[in-house]
């Protein structure tokens, strides 16, 4: 059991976290077939070469970069806030069955709210700004983090809680030193599910309101029947999400190097 350590456990695990670059091959294959089969300039299924020119065109107007930056800001800040909110509520609900029961129905109600239905209300009370965007993103993206945290908190081994009690930890210390670290792998799993959700929701709010961002560019491209540009933007978002996910995987591996190997979620 002991001394079964690989020589470079951390580096090895870090690399294991990253998807192999070969994994893009299926997508590339699809794109090549698409390009070959789609000779004419179809208004709905334009060939990948038209996607590229669409993006170039969009960049030339000078609108692409600010839109990307605006979306990026919402995604990153939203991610941080969603994690904070999800962990806080998750710990609260995980620690006390009574709180879980009291808040459960309300949370489930909120979870079912479709963004298009709450956007007008959020705008009414918050206005057309970053705050409104973030509110929608956080409200809708925190669920995987919240649920994973709560369920992991409930699964903390009772012995560990006995240890905390026997060492005279205060409520805050129990959460800070025992509860959150022991559910850290689950929190990170939740964040990993929430990450693409944050991207999707940021774009959705932008699509629904035309507030500056990549989503607004998408809806404009769609309305103007510039399908090449639309596909180009979609690929851009996909690549960006992939990049963000990879960065997050590395952060995750760095954080989790202290945890037993099996607790690292995929």
């Amino acid at each position, binding site marked *: *059991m002991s001394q079964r350590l690989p020589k470079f456990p951390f580096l090895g695990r870090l690399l294991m976290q990253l998807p192999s670059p070969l994994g893009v091959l299926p997508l590339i294959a699809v794109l090549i077939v698409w390009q070959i089969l789609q000779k004419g300039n179809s208004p709905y299924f334009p060939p990948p070469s038209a996607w590229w020119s669409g993006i170039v065109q969009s960049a030339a107007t000078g609108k692409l970069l600010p839109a990307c930056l605006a979306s990026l800001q919402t995604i990153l800040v939203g991610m941080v806030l969603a994690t904070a909110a999800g962990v806080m509520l998750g710990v609260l609900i995980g620690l006390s069955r009574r709180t879980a029961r009291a808040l459960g129905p309300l949370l489930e109600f909120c979870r079912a709210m479709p963004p298009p239905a709450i956007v007008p209300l959020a705008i009414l009370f918050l206005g057309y700004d970053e705050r409104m965007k973030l509110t929608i993103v956080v409200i809708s993206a925190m669920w995987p983090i919240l649920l994973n945290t709560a369920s992991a908190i409930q699964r903390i081994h009772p012995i*560990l809680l006995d240890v905390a*009690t026997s060492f005279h930890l205060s409520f805050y*210390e129990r959460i800070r030193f025992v509860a959150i670290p022991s559910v850290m792998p689950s929190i990170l799993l939740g964040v990993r599910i929430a990450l693409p959700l944050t991207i999707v929701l940021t774009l959705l709010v932008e699509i629904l309101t035309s507030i500056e961002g990549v989503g607004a560019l998408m809806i404009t491209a769609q309305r103007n029947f510039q399908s090449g540009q639309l596909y180009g933007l979609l690929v851009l978002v996909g690549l960006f999400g992939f990049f963000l996910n990879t960065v997050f995987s590395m952060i995750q591996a760095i954080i989790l190097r202290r945890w037993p190997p099996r*607790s690292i979620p995929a």
Partner: protein
Amino acid sequence: MSDPVFECRSASVTLSLSGGARPIISDINLDIQQAEFLSIVGPSGTGKTTLLRMLGGLLHPTSGEVRVNGAILTGPPEGVVIVFQDYANALLQWRTVAANVAFGIERKLPAKECTDRVNAALDLVGLSRRAEDYPWQLSGGMQQRVQIARALALRPAVMLMDEPFAALDAMTKAGLQDELLRLRDQTRTSFVFITHDIEEAVYLGDRVAVLKGSPGRIEDIVKIELPSLRDQISTRQMPEFLAYRYGLHKAIGHG
């Protein structure tokens, strides 16, 4: 004799389980002196762990009382620490060995003193070289020693141990048993040691309490009068040792 560190006066614990309220231990009367090693043996299901959790302040007696240094116990008492059987879940897997050992004292002592105590505790259990490893990188015996070091770092007056060596191999177990006795002599710590292994109870104990029945009651307390310097081979072959062993087996009902 001086005042006991621990006193139980007709303490009982009743737990409400899914099947309704069930008495687990009943009418427990115990005294534990300073630097005394008290073993508690009993068949499984007699409430050994419940008794220990009560002494550790994790459970309140439903009736009767538990006193530590004369004060009625209301929560986990200062100077009393528990070593759990299930070391894997009792350690903070995300902390290094050193950080685990520091867990009980880091918020109370200045950093320097904390480090000194951690090093001393790790020295005592022979894990100085693994201080920067994580528990999941250690063998079971080493992990249990980390837990013991964590308890020692607190410099407790009383250590409550719940079948700490149950999952360990015979060699490791023997080594740790002798370490405990050495620690007791060095630190004057009192031990309450729960085990289902009668030989272990006799080998370690100044007294052995027999817990029996459902709900569990203290059936008998046997004073062990063996030479205070114990030895794994010679002590275990002494006729007195064998007699104690035989007597306790009978008392438990293994006849």
